[in-house]
């Protein structure tokens, strides 16, 4: 993982990566619930708007209160990441230039401004603005948060698949050539859809779990039942959409980051007609010997599924780790150069850059400068390869990619099943609900007495505990997805253009270790405080029939 030939401190790269991972994981604890609860509270308040019943007002206000707590918990957690770019990844943050600047500026001006304005109306405006305006504010708060997510994901998508920019050797920055190409890149679109729908899953699970807890304690029964219906429906739609968008995202990865796909699948040697691995005996602690192994031992795979997922064709070609390292030719004639060739081209690009800057400083003529620039532009797509000394650096840490992908997809399937069953139990769907209940009773998962009813308040206690237990699993699935996305892109900070050891600031590893430990202690403490506030509010329950705001 570390390039020991550099004169920078060997620990700096790994500690800087670890610090970013820690702060990003922490940030991602709060964002999905914000996005997910926004949908739930919007639906609850829409029900109030239509029915005018006090019950729905209380329900909406309850979920909005929890939204508020989570929102406050998440404030500024993302800013740390911004600081880290400037301190720990200074070469990178200069190099990416416009890409982070423009989207983040738009995010701040449009999205965050929208979010904070309307969240104030949502909390303070219950008896001060019209019901319609208040409802609109609630939905616009959620929309603001979602638009915020768009811009960050555009930035991240650009790291995975850099498009729409041109490198300027005078300013040493990537300059945006087409805003639309960056903001609407297909990679960004599918990443956005997948990330947001996965956040809705978290919202759904959270609501179902909290409601289940109330049903266990035999409190707030009506609110719990109605909320479960909303949560389960949102969760079901979200998990199915997350699966579909995930499929699309995997295809994008197959095209733009084939090494990430190979690592995710522990596919050492690829080809056509590739199967999708369900499980395999992959040691979670050390990099497998991909050069000498044919495939991962004890591999159980679904035939043709990987080719289908990556190329929408069951006979499609999917390259493995060794194929990418050694170069391959796809059946339809496309030739992918070997890593050695890419390293050559990368070196040419770096030499051209050095020569260009040297020539510029010495005041050389137009022609020389243009010649250097054209060599640079020609080889720019492989710029990052010029930093690679050992081919094994190009292979991401396969165990994390492999197992986190399985955790995410496995749990995703569990959620589809879970929400599906709850919808069938909670909603009175003619025929199908009865069949489901009878089936569950036959297997022994439901007591006989409940087989013909529709009452979800009288399910066996373990049903409710299961829902509660799924909350940490949902967060684990969500974070696993990000681990795949980011670990799979290693060693690149920008795919093919800048590896971590070129991007990192030349800090002494001790200073990074200090900030890492500082975060660990600080954030763990804050997290404990914040979770206890959230739990206390859940314990208190909704304030019934209140007229003043309770924030």
């Amino acid at each position, binding site marked *: 993982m570390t390039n020991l030939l550099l004169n920078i401190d060997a620990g700096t790269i790994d500690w800087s990566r670890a610090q970013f991972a820690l702060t990003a994981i922490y940030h991602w604890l709060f964002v999905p619930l914000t996005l997910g609860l926004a949908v739930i509270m919007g639906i609850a308040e829409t029900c109030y708007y239509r029915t005018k019943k006090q019950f729905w007002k209380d329900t909406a206000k309850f979920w909005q209160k929890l939204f508020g707590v989570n929102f*406050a918990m998440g404030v500024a957690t993302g800013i*740390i990441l911004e600081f880290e770019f*400037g301190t720990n990844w200074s070469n990178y943050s200069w190099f990416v230039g416009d890409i982070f600047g423009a989207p983040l500026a738009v995010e701040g001006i449009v999205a965050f401004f929208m979010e904070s304005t309307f969240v104030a109306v949502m909390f303070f405006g219950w008896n001060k603005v019209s019901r319609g305006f208040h409802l609109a504010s609630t939905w616009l708060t959620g929309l603001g948060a979602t638009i915020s997510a768009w811009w960050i994901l555009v930035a991240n998508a650009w790291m995975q698949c850099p498009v729409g920019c041109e490198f300027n050797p005078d300013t040493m920055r990537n300059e945006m050539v087409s805003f639309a190409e960056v903001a609407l890149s297909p990679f960004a679109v599918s990443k956005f859809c997948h990330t947001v729908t996965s956040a809705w899953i978290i919202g759904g699970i959270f609501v179902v779990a909290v409601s289940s807890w109330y049903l266990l304690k035999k409190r707030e029964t009506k609110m719990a039942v109605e909320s479960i219906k909303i949560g389960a429906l949102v969760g079901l739609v979200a998990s199915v959409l997350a699966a579909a968008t995930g499929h699309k995202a995997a295809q994008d990865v197959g095209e733009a980051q084939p090494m990430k796909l190979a690592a995710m699948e522990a596919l050492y040697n690829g080809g056509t007609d590739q199967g999708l691995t369900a499980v395999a005996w992959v040691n979670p602690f050390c990099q497998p010997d991909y050069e000498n192994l044919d495939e991962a031992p004890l591999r159980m795979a679904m035939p043709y599924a990987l080719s289908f997922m990556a190329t929408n064709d069951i006979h499609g070609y999917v390259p493995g780790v060794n194929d990418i390292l050694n170069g391959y030719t796809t059946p339809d004639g496309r030739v992918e150069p070997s890593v050695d060739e890419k390293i050559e081209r990368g*070196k040419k690009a770096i030499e051209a850059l050095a020569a260009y*800057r040297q020539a510029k400083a010495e005041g050389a003529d137009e022609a020389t400068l243009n010649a250097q620039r054209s060599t640079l532009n020609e080889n720019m797509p492989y710029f990052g390869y010029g930093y690679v000394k050992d081919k094994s650096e190009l292979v991401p840490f396969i165990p994390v990619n492999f197992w986190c992908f399985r955790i995410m997809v496995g749990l995703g399937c569990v959620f589809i099943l879970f929400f599906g069953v709850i919808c069938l139990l909670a909603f009175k769907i003619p025929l199908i609900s009865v069949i489901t209940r009878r089936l569950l009773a036959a297997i022994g998962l439901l007591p006989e007495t409940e087989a013909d009813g529709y009452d979800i308040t009288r399910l066996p206690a373990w049903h409710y505990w299961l829902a509660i237990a799924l909350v940490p699993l949902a967060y684990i699935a969500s974070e696993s997805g990000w681990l795949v996305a980011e670990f799979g892109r290693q060693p690149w900070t920008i795919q093919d253009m800048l590896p971590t*050891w070129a991007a990192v600031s030349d800090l002494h590893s001790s200073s990074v270790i200090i900030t890492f430990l*500082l975060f660990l202690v600080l954030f763990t403490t804050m997290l404990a405080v*914040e979770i206890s506030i959230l739990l206390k509010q859940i314990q208190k329950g909704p304030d019934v029939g209140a007229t003043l705001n309770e924030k």
Partner: protein
Amino acid sequence: MQKDSFAYRVFDLYYDGFKNMRLGRVLWTVILIKLFIIFAVLKLFFFPNFLKQHAAGDEAGYVATELVERAQ
């Protein structure tokens, strides 16, 4: 000031809202403490702008030197 004017109603929304906060007070305390720690402690002492400190005005040149040297 007119009690019906838009400007007054906006002011009243925030004024009244903050005055009647209960849980909100706790949350705002948490937010303010967090913001203070992040901006006044972390940013100031632990997260300087690395480039500004080291580049002495010529950021592009500094980055260029770094990137070229790390390839050796």
